[in-house]
């Protein structure tokens, strides 16, 4: 578009963009500002916005699981359990998110392929069901799943968390992938089938390689959603060994003795992985979210 902009409109657009950027970023400032201070420093002046002195002691403490105390935490008698648990929870979250991503991709791409290629009534019905099931409140599933998992000994295990999350996310994966697979030309598969490929063979050798960008989009979104999930692990897990990051963070809620600065440092470490993913792989995430909402 080659219209000329008057300088007033240009200035207005600049201001509007700056306001939008402030809206998107400003709420994160407290996390960064508070996590780099000691609790004493933040309490000394309850009106200051910027820290007077900067320290990495909070991060050192958390990353060492409470072992490296340093001068700031030397005399502190109470440390929240979340600090000791954080490193293990981070590993648990990684395991769960990777497993969930892999499983939803496998199940979701198979289903999405049938939705995209087979014009059968029950396949269409299943698609509508996937769409509708996106709106089943998670809490509705968690009550019966809790009773079931209790009966079958899946409570307090990462396996249980993965099973529940996959069940909840597969319909969404289908919604993201189906429009993408439908947009691929069918001629290539037809040619492969004529040359003696089975339908599954054509899917594996031709469709999947062509669909790599769509799969990447779906995988990124699934990883992020799994990393964010609170309610499922909160209800399934009560033992520290199997806690994920959101559950450990939830342990800080209503802890009146916790240091703010320490809490914000844990938060920063907890949000860093998905924030990085979102910024670096933005192109894929955007495409997946849009097609998952509008076309699927």
């Amino acid at each position, binding site marked *: 578009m080659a219209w000329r902009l008057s300088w007033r409109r240009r200035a207005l657009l600049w201001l509007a963009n700056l306001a939008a950027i402030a809206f998107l970023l400003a709420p994160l400032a407290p996390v960064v500002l508070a996590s780099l201070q000691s609790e004493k420093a933040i309490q000394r002046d309850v009106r200051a916005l910027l820290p007077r002195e900067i320290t990495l002691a909070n991060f050192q403490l958390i990353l060492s699981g409470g072992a490296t105390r340093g001068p700031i935490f030397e005399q502190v008698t109470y440390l929240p359990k979340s600090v000791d648990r954080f490193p293990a929870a981070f590993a648990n979250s990684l395991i769960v998110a990777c497993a969930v991503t892999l499983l939803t991709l496998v199940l979701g791409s198979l289903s999405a392929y049938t939705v995209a290629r087979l014009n059968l009534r029950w396949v269409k019905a299943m698609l509508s069901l996937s769409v509708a099931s996106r709106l089943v409140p998670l809490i509705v599933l968690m*009550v019966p799943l809790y009773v079931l998992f*209790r009966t079958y000994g899946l409570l307090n295990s990462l396996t249980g968390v993965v099973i529940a999350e996959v069940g909840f996310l597969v319909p969404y994966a289908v919604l993201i992938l189906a429009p993408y697979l439908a947009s691929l030309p069918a001629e290539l598969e037809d040619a492969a089938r004529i040359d003696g490929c089975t339908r599954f063979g054509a899917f594996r050798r031709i469709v999947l390689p062509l669909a790599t960008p769509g799969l990447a989009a779906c995988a990124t979104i699934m990883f992020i959603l799994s990393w964010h999930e609170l309610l499922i692990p909160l209800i399934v897990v009560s033992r520290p060994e199997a806690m994920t*990051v959101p559950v450990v963070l939830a342990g800080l809620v209503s802890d009146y003795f916790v240091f703010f600065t320490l809490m914000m440092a844990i938060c920063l470490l907890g949000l860093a992985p998905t924030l990085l993913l979102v910024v670096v792989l933005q192109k894929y995430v955007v495409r997946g979210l849009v097609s998952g909402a509008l076309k699927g």
Partner: protein
Amino acid sequence: MNAPSGLWLALILAWPVLYAGWLSLHEVSIRQLRTGEFPFAGAANYVRLFRDDVFWLALSHTVVFVAISVALEVVIALAIALVINDERVWLSRVTRGLLLVPWGVPPVVNGLLWSVIFNAQYGYLNRALLALGLIAEHVNWLGDSRLAMGAVITAYVWRTTPFNILLYHAGLQGIPRDYYEAAEVDGASGWSRFWRITLPLLRPVIAVSLILRTAFAFMVFDEIFAITQGGPGNATWVAAWYTYRAAFQPPFNVGLGSASAWVMALILAVAGLAYARLVGRRLEP
């Protein structure tokens, strides 16, 4: 090829929903969970639920929460989508690159983060307002029932608006430039171009976003959990929080929780059907 995910969905989605319905008709509490026997209770759980003032309070809070947060999401997202759609300012590319930042923040972290922003003593909102001279005293944002609801809504809207921006941005990109150029030639003002061209052509996208956002706001849990825990008093009890408290906090009345979960599911089924019809129509070959 549908069998694996079909089976998985049947086990983890379809069956639990039905099983929740079954549980809601039985007496299931901590003692029954130990013995594994759930005596039939008829409609007792539902009777108890509908007689519980807190349940109705939670539902009414949910309606307020949904109405305000969805309205804010739509308006803010539309404004930002229009701003970034103008590519003649290079800064709009920066804005576009940062669009998903709030969406990338885990909901619990979002809750903890805003609880620190709104904290009465050390909170950053008070610090900023004091620095600007807008308030003279520290405000206890989370201690006042009205303000607390506003705080929870603010936190939720911040995290969820980017999703709407994406949808609207995609919708705006689909509107041909010629329409605007023709309107410009005919002398239409910017305002009337927005009302006569942009908004009508965005209507399908807005409809989808309205249904999705309404449904998701109806299920809000994480921010309530992390910021107020339903408080102060029960000023921010919402439907999902009621269900969670009933089923997973002492006295672990899973039967009652299932009943309230089913009521939620029925309310959302209406939204779900509308969404499926709207989106399903588009995918028809």
